[in-house]
């Protein structure tokens, strides 16, 4: 099964870190990604730009409305994701606990909707 690990954290905390600490943080993520890869569990991964770059779009009365900023305005924001392959939820939770993001934020684990094969 595939699971999406959504990494929520306070992005201002990252900006407050020294460059050495940031470097160490990036290295921890790199090692984690590597471990996922070697276990054959990694499907995809991306880090997102800060929410300052976010724009939301929706249709109101048939007209598109574009707004500056993220959809949810909260302290902890989606900062990236891992898409992983895991035999079950427990295995996915095991990977989530190892993610550096679990130490400085919260990780939401969601199974991917599986469509019946065509």
């Amino acid at each position: 099964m595939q699971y999406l690990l959504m990494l929520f954290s306070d992005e201002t905390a990252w900006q407050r870190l020294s460059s050495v600490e940031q470097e160490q943080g990036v290295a921890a993520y790199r090692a984690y990604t590597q471990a996922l890869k070697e276990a054959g569990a990694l499907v995809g991964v991306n880090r997102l730009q800060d929410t300052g770059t976010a724009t939301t779009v929706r249709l109101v009365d048939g007209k598109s409305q574009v707004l500056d900023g993220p959809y949810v305005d909260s302290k902890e924001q989606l900062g990236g994701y891992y898409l992983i392959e895991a035999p079950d939820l427990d295995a996915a939770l095991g990977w989530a606990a190892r993610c550096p993001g679990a130490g400085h934020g919260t990780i939401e684990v969601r199974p991917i909707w599986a469509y019946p094969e065509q």
Partner: protein
Amino acid sequence: MRDDASTQAAISAVARRSYGKLLAYLAADMRDVSAAEDALSEAFAAALADWSVHGCPDNPEAWLMTVARRKAIDGTRRRRTGEAVADQLKVMADAEAECWEAGDDEAIPDRRLALLFACTHPAIEVAIRAPLMLQTVLGVDAKTIASAFLVSPDAMCKRLGRAKQKIREAGIPFTIPERDIWSERLQGVLDAIYAAYSLGWSDMDDADLLRRDLVEEAIFLARLLAELLPQEPETLGLLAGMLYAQARCRARRNQQGEYVPLAEQDTHLWDATMIDQAEVVLRHACTFGRIGRYQLEAALQSAHVERRRSGRTDYAPEVQLYDALYALTGSPVVALNRALAMAELEGPAAAIAVFQALADDKRLADYQPYWAARASLFARAGNRREALHAYDMAIGLACDPAVRRFLQRRQRSMLAE
């Protein structure tokens, strides 16, 4: 009208003290853990209403037991699982009521042991035994257990439910097993306690109160077991091993909260009283002359703490202990630890050969301590490429942020050399 808060506090105190004891009784009588839990929680709910009006009874356990038995009888009738069971419950309730009323703890045999054996029965899936034991014997709630075992609360509730259903439907006995299957069954109980303990031990970040509690609960269970089975050396071995490890708890982090490996720990921070306790328990275990896995593990812990007295660690006896342990368990983790002790005696080359041989073992592929040990071995041997990769794996597989930072520092200092 009494103060609700004080009633609540009184009930919590009784629950902590006696939940397992009460549940063990009900479950053994009813041969059904979930029905017993229902009856007991109804009794606690009734206590909340009744005690806040009439005050806490002199013998709260007896009060709860009487009410829970009545609820159990009602429940059994309601479920129509047979008048016979209900009648039997009634007879037993009457017979034992006097003991409970008198508050005579000594007169009531402790049935928690039988409950422990039921929860760790071979017919129960291995992974759920420790959670089941924590829930029934100690009354730890399912949500807390789920967090500690890294499982979703919903899934944990379902699994616990299935296990209890199995106990009821398969007729798993609430008895202490016969001599001939004794050692195998006891192993199940010990393994479950140890599983709970090592889970709590492996991640002892300061913020992680849940897991730290798990360590305390496991030690409590081991003490209880040693009390109930004073003639079993393996039970004592398990208790001693956990006390040794726990004694080093404070030394595992420095003042900045950073991880400190065993060899670099300040021995003054080790809890001397706890180590002495462990020594006494282990020595007592050895007098029975029946060696086993948990006694060997405890003896290894004892070798580790020897540094407290002599200022150095002697690795030769450690290697011998690992040999004995490997002969018993055949575990790759034991082989790995033996190799590390060898590396201290003879240098990294011999250990590296063992590590290369273990590299194909699938059980170690995502075992974080394997990669951490491998990294330090290759770093010592001057093989930077292998060390770098092993550090990456160890960092990537680490759950504990302090351990992750520690390994990153080691990796950086290797690169800076």
